[in-house]
């Protein structure tokens, strides 16, 4: 079943400026769309609006059938919340079985829990479970009603790293054939789970495309920065501009994993900072008035002068310079 949403909604809270969400996206049958964006960009509000939790304008359609005026319980969605939202007064089994009385065709709770690796928790109460266990139960509750579309709101955000990785692998299996909209601010998760990614900022979808398109050909400096690309204003980096075979102006982006360095290359740079990450180091180089990041297994010392290689085909012109005024 495909989902199309073109919704507009305004949210206001005491003491805060009202926030406007105005976004459109489409998810094909069996496709996982990840909505990626910084905190406060309106991702969760968009997902909740599509689910029918908030009044909105504009259509939400399932296979062309308009469901905008349908209450949430009739929309045939499954929803997984960031903070699990399990019913604390019900056992795990009753949580998973919650929707069974409202749906004709539901999955067996015990079987589903066993598949998700929490089959021994059926008689426990949610507050006695770890975060990872609770989220697996929440996933089971959503899957139990065999929803046409799964909506997932940062289900991994509250989990520690090992649990997150383990559950992400399981989610990849679960979402492989499902129609799903998955909200996250984590680009690694987005890349791992997405068939397509919609980047959201300030209540609007600013770019939508495959992971490769989003990560390698960002539509704006904001998208490039948020997805971890180097964003280089060539006005501030003349040595990079002159190193490019095809001279250009404006702002270009390049993935840090595409940047190589050594004793020879295109651009002279100085190591400014080294941050050790899981498997490698993230090295920040100073080039003219800009910085460029790259990954390295062995990083040279801070202050070392090296040569950077920026493969021309990896350099993406993100925003061309405005034509000079006559």
């Amino acid at each position, binding site marked *: 079943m495909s989902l199309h949403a073109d919704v507009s909604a305004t949210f206001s809270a005491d003491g805060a400026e009202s926030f406007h969400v105005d976004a459109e996206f489409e998810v094909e049958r069996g496709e996982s769309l990840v909505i990626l964006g910084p905190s406060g960009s309106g991702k969760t509000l968009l997902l909740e609006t599509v689910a*029918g939790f908030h009044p909105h304008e504009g259509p939400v359609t399932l296979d062309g059938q308009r469901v905008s005026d349908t209450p949430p319980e009739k929309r045939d969605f499954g929803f997984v919340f960031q903070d699990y*939202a399990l019913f604390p*007064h019900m056992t795990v089994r009753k949580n998973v079985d919650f929707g069974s009385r409202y749906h004709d065709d539901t999955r067996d709770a015990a079987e589903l829990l066993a598949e998700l690796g929490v089959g021994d928790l059926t008689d426990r109460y949610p507050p006695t479970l770890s975060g990872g266990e609770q989220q697996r139960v929440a996933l089971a509750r959503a899957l139990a009603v065999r929803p046409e579309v799964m909506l997932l709101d940062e289900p991994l955000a509250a989990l520690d790293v090992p649990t997150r990785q383990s559950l992400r692998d399981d989610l990849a299996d679960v979402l492989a054939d499902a129609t799903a909209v998955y909200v996250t601010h984590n680009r690694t998760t987005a890349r791992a789970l997405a068939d397509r990614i919609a980047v959201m900022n300030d209540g609007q979808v600013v770019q939508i495309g495959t992971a490769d398109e989003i990560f390698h050909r960002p539509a704006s400096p904001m998208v490039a920065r948020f997805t971890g690309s180097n964003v280089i204003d060539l006005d501030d980096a003349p040595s990079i501009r002159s190193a490019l075979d095809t001279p250009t102006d404006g702002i270009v982006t390049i993935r840090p994993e595409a940047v190589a360095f050594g004793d020879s290359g295109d651009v002279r740079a100085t190591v400014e900072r080294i941050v050790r990450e899981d498997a490698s180091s993230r090295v920040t180089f100073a080039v003219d008035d800009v910085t460029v990041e790259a990954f390295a297994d062995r990083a040279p010392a801070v202050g070392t002068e090296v040569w950077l290689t920026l493969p021309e085909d990896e350099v993406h012109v993100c925003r061309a310079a405005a034509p000079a005024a006559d």
Partner: protein
Amino acid sequence: MATRTETRFSLDGVGRVPLAVAFLVVQVLAFVAAYTVGRPTWYAFFMIGSTAVTAYAVHGDSFVVAAATMGSILMVALGLPLFLFVARQQPAIVVEKAFNPDVHRMLYLGVYGPLLAAIVSLVFGVPLAHLLSEGFAGQPLVESLVDLPLVVPHSVAGIIILFGFGKGGAFPNISVLGTMIGMVLAMTFVSAPYAVNATREAFESIDDRLEYASRIHGASRWDTFRRVTAPLAVRGMVTGGVLAWARAVSEFGAVAVVAYSVSFFYPPAGGEVTAQHAPVFVYGTYLQGGLAESGAVAFILLGVSALIFLLVRYLTSDSTTTGGVV
């Protein structure tokens, strides 16, 4: 590193409960001694001094000692009259009153009438509390109206009820003056804010996402209230009901104005009897029989009130609010 607390007095070694029991026993002995020699004032100073010394022995912290000393002065103001009231009772009169049929009727009416008021407050207050927890246009106005009885002198509340529902009021066919309906109405007027506010706080403490989770997995608003919201707020409702009941038990002003004496069905008599609400009865006894007789009735009433108080404490204690589950 050892803290100052540990070096002075090991709470772990003695335990909180034995320490509290020992403190209480010493207080009782000191009061009995002071009362026996006819110097209750000495006990007041002993209580303040012993609290300060105990606070120093346990914490050795000037802030805690100052707070405990100031607090004990208030405890003297609240507790000493109570201790003296109990100590100065004449057992013969108390026993006589305890077997007095008029007192039995008073106690029956003093529990039954407030129970009706608490039920009315909850039946109509819970839906209002739910609306208030969700918010709506004009909410501040409704909130003010709900809280109004808290600031209106209660004799004034009685007069307001007579204007509203008495002769020439909104329902001229319903008699409120000197009737059970009038008494329950007066009690409801003063106690409903407790039921509404306690229940509202319980609703507000429930995460919206639990209701979202219920709706999206198939439950209608009614079912969501029945299966999720109400069970999670039930302790707040019970607490609100008990508070409303306790408030109605202690109501004097409004009841005295609207229904000084009321006729009601009294099961032990198998028919209608006329009696007065407990505080009104105590006041009447004081005017007619003096301090000793009214004191004995008040003593019995105090026992009932203490039971209600203990019930409220039990219902609002941490162990019961979590229910061992949540």
